[in-house]
């Protein structure tokens, strides 16, 4: 009973919030609704018994990714509404839904549910984080290490890309920048 209430509440709220993200013209509205949608997505994970995944979703998405977007937005002009030369909304909706349906029909429909079987069943007496740790550090150890290296590369790449010419302001005009350089 409570599971049903929670499921429908979470699904309606996430769909509504993500629709705001997709359709809003204001970057701040889009970002805040995306962040709250991410929080509610973690509710789906808790409902499915994937406790550790839910916590990771909260920490990584809501904590790190949205903070990174918030920092990135400081570089862009966000106070004015985004002006976009949009094509007709009906066409976009029809195209989006039909592409999603087409992908499901192409890739998911040929798989019959009887063929799927569990290859990595969790330990019977372990809590979810324990079971995840046991599988992650045995069967998925190599992908885990590769993901660690990938995150390191992404961090270095992000620092190098965003760190160039950090001493110059984006919002000031060129003349002010030149004056600042001369003072130095």
């Amino acid at each position: 009973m409570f599971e049903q209430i929670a499921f429908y509440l979470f699904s309606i709220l996430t769909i509504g919030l993500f629709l705001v993200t997709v359709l809003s013209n204001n970057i701040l509205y889009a970002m805040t609704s995306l962040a709250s949608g991410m929080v509610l997505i973690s509710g789906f994970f808790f409902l499915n018994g994937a406790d550790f995944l839910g916590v990771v979703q909260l920490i990584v998405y809501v904590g790190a990714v949205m903070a990174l977007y918030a920092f990135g937005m400081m570089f862009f002009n966000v106070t004015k509404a985004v002006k976009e030369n949009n094509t007709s909304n009906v066409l976009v909706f029809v195209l989006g839904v039909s592409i999603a349906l087409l992908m499901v029909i192409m890739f998911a429909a040929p798989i019959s549910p009887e063929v799927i079987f569990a290859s990595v069943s969790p330990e019977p007496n372990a809590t979810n984080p324990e079971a995840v740790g046991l599988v992650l550090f045995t069967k998925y150890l190599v992908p885990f290490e590769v993901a660690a290296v990938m995150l390191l590369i992404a961090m270095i790449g992000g620092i190098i890309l965003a760190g160039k010419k950090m001493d110059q302001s984006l919002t000031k005009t060129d003349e002010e920048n030149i004056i600042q350089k001369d003072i130095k």
Partner: protein
Amino acid sequence: MIGLNHYLIVAGLLFAIGLIGVIRRKNLLMLFFATEIMLNAANVAFAAISHYYNDLSGQMFAFFIVAIAASEVAIGLGLLILVYKKQGTLDLDDLASMKG
């Protein structure tokens, strides 16, 4: 009773919303938001399948998707800042400088 199909339908709806955003958006930052929605929809489907088939592989794939999304945002925002410094705009129509 909530079954696997309920979760898969919600995941499909979220994915379609993300796809609509990718098609509709002209601002690069908003395009990034739409891709995040699509990645999250895939995560919901993975977690639900992992629960109903009693198999941890789905959760593992969801973890790697989260890692990939994090690194994608780090690199992507760096590139966006470079584009904004160079062109002064993030609009895709204004960035179309390679018209034949």
